[in-house]
């Protein structure tokens, strides 16, 4: 049976650390310019050619390629200015204990540069990358800089959370559960009364499990991602695993998108490689849906066809097929269990949804499918 493990990390959010880093950044620039030198930032390069898979820690990591942003280079000067603007804004946010969304950060820093018709930022697509740059330069999460991401996802189960002055148990909020905020850095786990966390792709499935009282019967915490897991949810999963020792089990649709959701929770995404260590949870395991489930539970009737052109057809592979083939090449799917599932999907040309289990009966997923698979540890790595 799954049980809570020993914690590996401790609650470690410290706003002072962020402030120190920002001030240091400013002082460094000032020093350069005072000496008549051309001041610059060193920013770890983004993109595929600066990430790699760390086989030991089993996360996607950022490489050591840097790009240098000079003030005296006209092509760099605007971004140089923008970087300092955002840095100063973050300093104010953190020191005042305020949070802002990415959009607010954009609007707050947008204004016309005096004597010109130019705006400091024309568009949010200018400010977002600067924020990413700061994350990579300083090695702190956007959330630690009090910049919140879009929120999505909710939690239900017998754990008690402290958020500021409030303390509440997420199994006592009716079927609604607790909506995960954009930033979870500041919340604290007061009491954990579950054995593991079940991360569920669709809200409908999470609701089903709640209605069937699965969290209580199985001593599980339900985390509904509602599609691709938001940064808040991923950070929450990470903290629950490392700070509270909860085993993480992921339950998605049996299709390339579902497997990608799992992959992101487990290993991080290439876009956010620089955050892998804080957002990813490589120890997560996968319960379903798998291709084997189709045979085992007689679900042939309720599969759907994969979209796109198969690899052996003209113009192929495209769509789902292309995605599956890409996933077969992920380092963390390079094991015989996953290769087998992905190959079967290609072979049969089908996908299977979580809710297809309702074809058996509404209770089936909560009473039989999940308890059996988890008890027997029929989990994919």
């Amino acid at each position: 049976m799954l049980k809570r493990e020993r914690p590996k990390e401790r609650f470690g959010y410290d706003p002072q650390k962020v402030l120190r880093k920002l001030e240091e950044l400013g002082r460094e620039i000032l020093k350069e310019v005072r000496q008549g030198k051309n001041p610059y930032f060193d920013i770890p390069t983004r993109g595929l050619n600066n990430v790699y898979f760390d086989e030991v820690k089993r996360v996607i990591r950022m490489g050591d390629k840097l790009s240098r942003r000079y003030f005296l280079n006209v092509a760099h000067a605007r971004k140089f200015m923008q970087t300092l603007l955002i840095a100063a804004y973050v300093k104010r946010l953190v020191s005042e204990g305020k949070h802002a969304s990415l959009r607010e950060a954009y609007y707050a820093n947008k204004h016309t540069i005096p004597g010109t018709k130019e705006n400091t930022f024309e568009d949010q697509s200018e400010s977002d990358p600067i924020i990413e740059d700061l994350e990579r330069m300083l090695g702190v999460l956007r959330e630690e800089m009090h910049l919140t991401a879009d929120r999505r996802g909710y939690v239900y189960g017998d754990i008690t959370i402290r958020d500021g002055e409030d303390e509440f148990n997420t199994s006592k909020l009716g079927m609604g559960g607790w909506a995960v905020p954009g930033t979870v850095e500041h919340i604290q786990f007061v009491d954990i009364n579950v054995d593991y966390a079940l991360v569920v792709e669709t809200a409908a499935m999470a609701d089903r499990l709640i209605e069937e009282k699965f969290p209580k019967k199985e001593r599980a915490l339900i985390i509904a991602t509602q599609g691709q897991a938001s940064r808040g949810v991923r950070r929450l999963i990470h903290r629950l695993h490392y700070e509270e020792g909860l085993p993480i089990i992921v339950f998605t649709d049996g299709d390339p998108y579902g497997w990608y959701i799992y992959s992101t929770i487990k290993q991080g995404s290439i876009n956010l490689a620089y955050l892998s260590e804080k957002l990813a949870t490589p120890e997560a395991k996968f319960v379903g849906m798998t291709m084997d489930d189709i045979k085992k539970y007689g679900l042939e009737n309720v599969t759907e066809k994969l979209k796109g052109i198969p690899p052996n057809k003209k113009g192929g592979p495209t769509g789902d097929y292309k995605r599956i083939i890409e996933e077969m090449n992920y380092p963390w799917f390079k094991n015989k269990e996953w290769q087998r599932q992905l190959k079967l999907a290609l072979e049969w040309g089908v996908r299977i949804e979580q809710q297809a289990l309702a074809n058996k009966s509404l209770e089936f997923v909560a009473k039989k499918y999940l308890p059996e698979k988890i008890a027997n540890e029929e989990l994919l790595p």
Partner: protein
Amino acid sequence: MAKAKELFKEFKIQSVSEFFRRNAAMLGYTGKIRSLTTVVHEAVTNSLDACEEAGILPYVRVEIEELGREHYKIIVEDNGPGIPEKFITHVFGKMLAGTKAHRNIQSRGQQGIGISGAVMFAQITSGKATRVITSTGGDEIIEAWVKIDVEKNEGKIVKKLKHPNPTGWRGTRIELEVKNVKYVRSKQGVFWYLKLTAIANPHAHIELIEPDGKLIVFPRSSEEIPKPPVEMKPHPKGVMTDDIYRMAKKTRKNTVKRFLISEFSRISDKKIDELIKYIAAIRLINREEDKRIKDQLFERLAKGEVDLILKSYGRRAKKVLKEVQKLMEKPPEKLSWHEAEEIVEAFKYMKFLAPPTHGLRPIGEENIVKGLTGILKPEFVTAVTRSPKVYRGGIPFQVEVGLAYGGELESTFNLLRYANRVPLLFDAGACVTTMAARSIDWKRYKVEDLDRAPLTLLINVISVHVPYTSTGKQSIANEDEIYEEIRLAIMEAARRLQTYLSGKHRRLYQVKRKKTLQKYVPEIARALSILTGEPEEKIKEYFLRLIEKKFENVEETLEQAVEVEADAEA
């Protein structure tokens, strides 16, 4: 069952005029707007050609009078050499007659159909004869009304008057009355046609009086009279067997050798010696039975190893050489098809000087620049006139490209197509010029979005015989050699544009650079002040000092950039 003899009882011969009367669309008389443009085109073309052949700076005036619904009188007057009385019926009344088609000469008109076609079109739509007033500058002015006798393909003067010519006026004025046409100021109409004509003929003064009485003048921007075109002999490269065979039959020279030297360009006595060797070699090689050896030998021949090959055949070669020498001495009319084929085959392996250019009459780079500048007023303009080349049938041709950019041009791509300086207004899609222009990777030349660039491209294809896709003469066929030449010309012009644009951008950058950096200083100072606690004013000072220092070193770069740009404009 009918007997063959009965069937052939009615066998008759149709006249060319009759043929084209039934197929007027083939001559460009299709659609109300286009038909009107075609009439004007035929008349103006005749005027410009005549002036140029005579070495006169042309003054052409076009007047469109509206007589009724879809009923116009078109008047075209020039200061050309005039038409001698006895040629009036031929020029205006007989199709496939003219001074041009049978000679290897470049001219705007080409097939001797043009103006007679216009006369016929006027006649079949309005029933009216065409009024011609002309004088060669002598004592009298001829006024004649010309009709076409369609069945006989002959001109007929319906009425003729002679007037004294006290002022010594010289020129031709023709008046055509047409129905079923329409005057519109569209891109396929007369106005646009004359604008394009003016661009390509900066030495011509062209005026247009529109039906509402508005006068539009496209003034002369060059005083240089283009040299009159001369007849050109065909070039050996690419000549067809049929050409040689037919020409040999009617030449007045008495040996094949003399015939080749006198009737083709770039063939000298020395070249005939070379030709003999090549023909001999080809004969010898063709006798080889092993296909691999044959191919190898032809490959070596292509590399110019003709002497080595002949040497390798020893005495057999000498015998064959003698035979070929004999062939060169025989009367041309005895030249067989097979022998003509051998000559063409040998030509393919030989090297010749490029075809002579004296017969082709490009607008010239300078004049293209003048024409584009005068009419379009762009910011940058350049022109490329390529050296002449040959396409199928030994037909020399030459490509010119003009490129205008920016200034008063609208932000849209315009392609001005010409064949022998004549604007092509229709069927742009099928034209080799369009294909070539579109095939260019404009992004490589700093033109990011061609269709929104303030860019006008002029392409003029010059040849004794332009390969039109149809008799409408509105689109040039996609011959590989022509396509390639157009591309090369565009690319050269585009490279100059690129240099200009780079230079322009560079200079602009340098000028704005200091300001740009300075502009950001207050923002940076405020932010750094928040981050570090240092006073804003102090931080500002540091940065401004840094910028000043930087710009001491930058001035020389600025000058370099301006030089590059000057080069591009020269």
